[in-house]
């Protein structure tokens, strides 16, 4: 789960993750206003083949969700790191993000 280049507090999945999941047909997001804990299962994402859970990346509050991807889950395959963000989050402890990979580190990670 990463913030794309045009994102600030937006959370989503990478294009690489979307490609690995395959054609996405269903997304269930938490409600705006929900308080979540790091590593809590908060999103269900289903591709044609399988269901996956997505974990909260940090502690905090969901401040806005992207209804567009619920209406049109295929957007995630088309523009994962652009318009198809999942939700916006207000961090309770921004230091939890210190360990996040940057884009270069991630590209190395996925090889």
């Amino acid at each position, binding site marked *: 789960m990463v913030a794309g280049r045009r994102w600030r507090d937006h959370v989503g999945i990478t294009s690489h993750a979307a490609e690995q999941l395959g054609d996405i*047909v269903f997304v269930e997001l938490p409600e705006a206003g929900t308080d979540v804990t790091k590593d809590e299962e908060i999103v269900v994402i289903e591709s044609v083949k399988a269901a996956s859970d997505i974990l909260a990346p940090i502690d905090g509050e969901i401040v806005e969700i992207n209804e567009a991807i619920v209406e049109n*889950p295929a957007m995630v395959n088309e523009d994962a790191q652009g318009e198809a963000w999942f939700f916006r989050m207000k961090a309770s402890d921004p230091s939890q993000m210190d360990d996040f990979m940057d884009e270069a580190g991630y590209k190395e990670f996925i090889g």
Partner: protein
Amino acid sequence: MSDLRRTPLHALHIELGARMVPFAGYDMPVQYPSGIMTEHTHTREKAGLFDVSHMGQVRLSGDGVAAAFEQMVPMDVQGLAEDRQRYGFFTNAEGGIEDDLMFANRGDHLFVVVNAACKAADIARMKAVLEPEVSVDPVEDRALMALQGPAAETVLAALAPAVASMRFMDVATVDIMGAACWVSRSGYTGEDGYEISVPAGMAEPVARALLTHDDVLPIGLGARDSLRLEAGLCLYGHDIDSATTPVEAGLNWAIQKARRSGGARAGGFPGADRVLAQLQEGAARKRVGLKPEGRAPMREGVELFGAAEGGAPVGALTSGGFGPTVGGPVAMGYLPAALTSEGTVVFGELRGRRLPLTVCALPFVAAGFKR
């Protein structure tokens, strides 16, 4: 990894960029770069080429082979005309299904195609029952591919004009690029099309020739599953197994009159007492089509309840997922007979919540067979 078997088309799958997965002991393509959704839709609209070489191809030959095979299946084998094929299944002593299959009358032999995961057991079972009078010969030197979709006839007829005049479930030996291919007009997608048994050495050239056609895309196991699910077709080990009977599975149509009570050769197959009784009296549970409301796919294993709250499960899904042609989730499962009429609403438990599904007629997508 190295234990996985490879079909004669394995190198072609890799070259085409397939994502490979282990399936029934084989390294098989689950999807190609175009993805399951595109592959599915393309097969419904044009044509798709599937490698099904992992399936078991078996020749049965010898005097009285049709009568002998009738000891193993509740089908009218003796009444099957030459160069015609039928769907069938092996039953066990309890009337459960040991595997489903296709069999064809090729004049001097029966040609049988069985599921990959069951083929070793099927061959052993056939040898035990049929030998020595009937010879059971697994065909190890041939690939099997399926060309499915409304454009299949035009595409295959360009290489072998004779296939155009075949009807649904006809079989023939056809010359394709110099290879003697065993072709049936059948498949497992609900679309018109062909299954083509090709000598292993010619499999790749024939597949390449078919793929050069603009209307043909290679299709993996992912779309094969969503296509057969929309077509309401059973997947062995999921929708049917050794504990489900043909009547429970709604496969009564596959048991011809000659083998039913009062027929010329009634019974005489494993579990006949139970199967024949169920044919007359019905079964306590039945396979049905189910459409989940909303968008969330419900998959195999989801438990079904008669009410939105409380009560014990009354059944479970045996297949389920997103139907690309339907444009929403579709599923099949078993329910008590009283809950199987069209329009009945039941509830599936998904992530701790019960969501409604409606019993509906199968198939979800009308078949396109050339009868």
